[in-house]
């Protein structure tokens, strides 16, 4: 039996998504910009997709800009906002535990003359609201904070951003990278008080190659790509219709977040109870983190060794995040974990399709690893 517990890296596409993609590839293959009937059919498909993704965020369709995925949406948010507001200030505030597509974009903006302030996190991987308020000044043009951390699952105080920005009198746009929260928590950017919000298709059982940036009505960004009038000139290029159609179908198939969370919560309880019976295992995710994601350490064993061992038994998890292959986790470092804990970290990430049997298979294999592998 295989146990796929790496759903924060990617998820298997759901039936609805693959069917929609098949349809888009075989019948609705027109260019949405073409004037003829084939183009019109594709344009309708695009409109429907936009409406579905908007609905999943309680947003309006024209607030959704399709991109190639989370990384591109994050790049568009940061570079687009920085360019649009560069005359009103130079400060950009992000957390120290952002995804690399935010962290590295911010680092690039720093080389282009912007001032980047990084907010540290406490032992629970959370940014403090006080520090946040202190970092935002009247010069701040952009604040970007993730909704859920991708390595440990900590929830960030995104709701407090609007107040902090208003209090500082900052001309700042507020961006939230919600890739890991999308489909798992009820997200309504307007209600959260954010201007920009990133989501991705392949983390919600859609295909790779599609994502979206929510841009609140009235907010202007500078484009980072040029060459056409698609997506309101913000994302020129012929739309990747099969991926977008699959994305929309996956968004439509999302269950009620509370109900899904209740189910995944029982899986998390089973996982944690099992982990507590294995000697030497440390749970790094705070107790109040999102149940979908659990970070643990087996001090004395190397993550890569554990991954190889588990993989040979059909159990798939990851070390930290899949994007940071071979690098030390910035997040765990920021949380103040020691070297042995960081070197032996594993991320177990669940989805609404995960079963109890998969949890048990993981626990069984990890117990075996604990007993057979030599410790460093």
């Amino acid at each position, binding site marked *: 039996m295989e146990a796929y517990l790496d759903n924060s890296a990617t998820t298997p596409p759901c039936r609805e998504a693959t069917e929609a993609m098949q349809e888009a590839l075989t019948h609705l293959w027109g260019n949405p910009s073409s004037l003829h009937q084939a183009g019109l059919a594709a344009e309708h498909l695009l409109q429907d997709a936009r409406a579905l993704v908007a609905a999943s965020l309680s947003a309006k369709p024209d607030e959704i800009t399709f991109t190639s995925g989370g990384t591109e949406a994050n790049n568009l948010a940061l570079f687009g906002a920085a360019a649009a507001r560069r005359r009103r200030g130079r400060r950009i505030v992000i957390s120290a535990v952002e995804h690399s597509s935010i962290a590295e974009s911010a680092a690039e903006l720093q080389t282009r003359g912007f001032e980047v302030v990084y907010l540290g996190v406490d032992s629970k991987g959370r940014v403090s609201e006080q520090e946040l308020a202190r970092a935002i000044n009247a010069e701040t043009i952009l604040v970007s904070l993730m909704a859920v951390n991708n390595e440990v699952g900590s929830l960030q105080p995104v709701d407090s951003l609007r107040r902090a920005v208003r209090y500082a009198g900052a001309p700042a746009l507020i961006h939230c990278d919600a890739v890991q929260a999308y489909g798992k928590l009820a997200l309504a950017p307007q209600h959260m008080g954010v201007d920009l919000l990133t989501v991705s298709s392949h983390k919600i059982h859609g295909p790779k190659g599609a994502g979206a940036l929510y841009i609140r009505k009235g907010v202007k960004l500078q484009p980072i790509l040029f060459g056409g009038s698609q997506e309101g000139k913000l994302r020129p290029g012929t739309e990747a219709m099969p991926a977008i159609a699959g994305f929309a179908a996956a968004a439509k198939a999302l269950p009620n977040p509370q109900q899904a969370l209740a189910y995944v919560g029982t899986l998390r309880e089973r996982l944690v109870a099992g982990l507590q019976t294995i000697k030497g295992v440390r749970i790094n995710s705070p107790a109040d983190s999102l149940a979908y994601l659990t970070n643990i350490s087996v001090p004395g064993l190397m993550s*890569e*060794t554990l991954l*190889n061992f588990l993989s040979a038994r059909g159990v798939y998890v990851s070390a930290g995040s899949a994007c940071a292959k071979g690098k030390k986790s910035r997040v765990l470092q920021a949380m103040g974990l020691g070297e042995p804990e960081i070197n032996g970290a594993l991320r177990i990430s669940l989805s609404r399709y995960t079963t109890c049997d998969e949890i048990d298979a993981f626990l069984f294999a990890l117990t075996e690893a604990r007993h057979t*592998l*030599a410790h*460093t």
Partner: protein
Amino acid sequence: MNEVLLIKAGELVLKGLNRRTFEDQLLKNLRRALRPLGPWQYHWSQSTLQAIPGAPSVNMAAAAEKTGKVFGIAGYSRALRLPKDMTTLLAAAPSYLSDALRFARTFKCEAKRSDKRFPLRSPQICEEMGEVLCNAFPHLRVDVRQPDVTIHIEIRDQYAFLHAGQLRGAGGLPVGTAGEAVLLISGGIDSPVAAWMMARRGLRLTAVHFASPPYTSPRAEEKVHKLLAAVAGYAGRVRLFVVPFTAFQEQIRERCPEDLFTLVMRRAMMRIAEQIALRENCGALITGESLGQVASQTLQALACTNSALTLPVFRPLVGMDKNETIEIARKIETFEISVLPYEDCCTVFTPRHPRTKPKLSMLTQAEQSLDWDILLADALKGAQFLSIEAEGVQPCKRES
């Protein structure tokens, strides 16, 4: 159009009575390299080898690239082969040379007339050719001192050849003329470079890689396949033995003092490699060790590893700086593969404070605690044999 490759043999022309063996090996290696591209005919005249494609569809650019990687070649050029007749030569020149001359500013002609019966003398050949090319490409000027492009006209015994200059070959001696040796390869930057350097001196390669699952991943082994495929572009087919090493490493970790882990492990690897070498008729071992690079490559450590062996060990990088090694690794396109971040057999269980000045007696004593014979026999028995070619990262499995 009858385009051929003109290949000039390198160092081997200095050989004496056994020169034929070197030439035959070079021809064999070249045949093997070019065969996937189509049918070829070969013809030696003095120290120049002509490779003549047997079909017009043969991709000459790909053939030139492959030729550039065959050891034993000093230089090579793509040339047009024509009957020895000046009118034909002049007529064919502009269209054949247009790629070379279109973006050049200046050029000159150089003629070589080894067939002295040809009616025109070399300066006359150049003069006529120069005039035709100047008319065909009005933007060109003649510059005999530092031309952008030099056009060569060679009048040989049967044919005339026309080309726009020679490219430098890979040098060295044909692979196989020096015998065969066993390369120890982990996946780092050094061993592929060492392999390339020794293959250039004529050694055929058999590689030994140690895998320690689950401490090392299948990707680490795949990385070695890719590295060897890159090396095989120069060295021809490489045989690979993948030796299971987990049990060995776990026992070393359990029973030996920590500061000696790496050295005991390296001695074990060398001995296993030597056993394979003896069984496979290989006369030496090759490693990527460089003096003082890490704790296990100090003078004392190298002496300890060496004393486990009777076969000679070639360490072509021993006196090289890392930057020089990296430069070669980039040139032979192994660097980007080597830096992929997977655990390999050498980074598993690295001691915190390895001993840099070990004594042999410490090691022999530490090794007494190991079930040496059983571990060695198991490792050899479990070895998997694969064959790796430049084209195929996917190796074909065979019985060992």
